[in-house]
């Protein structure tokens, strides 16, 4: 009986060790979760050949309540593509894409802002224990508000009934 008792102690210690080292339930950054809309900018003069064309001093701001401010990484930058996060709580998201964003000597904002509306159907897909669900977007449609002075000439989806499932592929082409 005595030696049985002596064995019990290390066995209990071993069990407690196993219990305390469960895998951390933290969503890894490499996991594909909710994707952003990936748009690329092309030259409107060569629509048939898709020649990439930079947008100069592009500033992206979302329209929402509360005001989300400027999209991080898009404060007057020159780029030939952009990643726009979409709202997972609503069926549309609006952005102001401001080209040639700068101030004159009197502090007045110059350049050309265009407002776009992205509408879509949301679908929640299970990812994992740690990440929960992600939202994917189906039937994504971009419309450009006509303000009489649009720098965006043409918007074209890459596929019919465009879906946004991952960020690697370009979803929309914007010609200017």
């Amino acid at each position, binding site marked *: 009986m005595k*030696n049985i008792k002596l*064995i019990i102690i290390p066995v209990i210690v*071993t069990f407690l060790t*196993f219990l305390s080292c469960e*895998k951390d339930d933290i*969503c890894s950054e490499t996991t594909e979760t*909710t994707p952003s809309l990936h748009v690329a900018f092309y030259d409107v003069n060569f629509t048939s050949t898709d020649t990439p064309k930079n947008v100069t001093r592009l500033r992206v701001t*979302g329209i929402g309540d509360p005001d989300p401010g400027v999209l991080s990484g898009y404060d007057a930058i020159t780029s030939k593509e952009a990643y726009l996060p979409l709202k997972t709580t609503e069926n549309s998201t609006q952005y102001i894409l401001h080209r040639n964003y700068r101030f004159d000597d009197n502090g007045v904002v110059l350049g050309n802002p265009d407002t776009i509306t992205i509408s879509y159907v949301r679908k929640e897909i299970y990812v994992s224990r740690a990440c*929960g669900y992600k*939202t994917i977007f189906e039937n994504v449609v971009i419309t450009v508000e006509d303000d009489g002075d649009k720098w965006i000439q043409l918007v074209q989806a890459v596929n019919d009934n465009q879906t946004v499932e991952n960020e690697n592929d370009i979803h929309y082409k914007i010609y200017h």
Partner: protein
Amino acid sequence: MKMTYTIKYIINSLAILLVFCATTQAQNDSIISAKTDSIKHKESYGLRLGGDLSKLIRSFIDDEYKGFEINADYRLSKKWYVAGEFGVEDKTTINDYLNVDTKGSYFKAGVDYNAYENWYGMENMLYGGFRVGASTFSQTLNSYGVYSQNQYWTPQFTSSEGKEFSGLSAIWGEFIIGIKAEVLNNLYVGLNAQFKYMMTQDQPDNFENLYIPGFHKTYDSGGFGFGYGYSISYLIPFYKKNK
């Protein structure tokens, strides 16, 4: 840092275990020579019935768990036992993005092999065994949230509609090691550890089994599972037989 401590604990306990194993061996050696006397001890054969105390205790102290298990074994020969368990579990899994309730019952059946050479007059077990386990259960997704690495728009979508996935089942195999010690006449207490491997399971549509009754928590990395038990059982002796 945590990992180093963990390794240290494992090594320490294994070292202690080895030391005690060695002493056990040594003591047994000395007994063998003294066993030449003519007294013959008869060992009890019968049905041992019991329950799992750890699941009962956990039901009281853990708000997210309710469960019990009854277990039984029947001695076939000097070393071999047929053994089985039946249990019911209700476990809630909550993290930042999921709130899930798993309910169901399970049944396990298999054999145990007693590797312990008892001293004169004792009937303890230090055993290893194998089980096949099966469970039927349901999962209720009480609420979930959407994860987005980009937090420009906040908060992200959450749903608390509640969705039930019922009629799920799973089958697994498991190795079990443990001890059973007779503390009073025919009354045993035991400790065991289980290592499980999933053979087949129904996965719910657009979701997964986070917990399975009897199998316990599932892991993203594979079909492995772990368990432990603290049992108390009573032997109903049917007959006695010489060693």
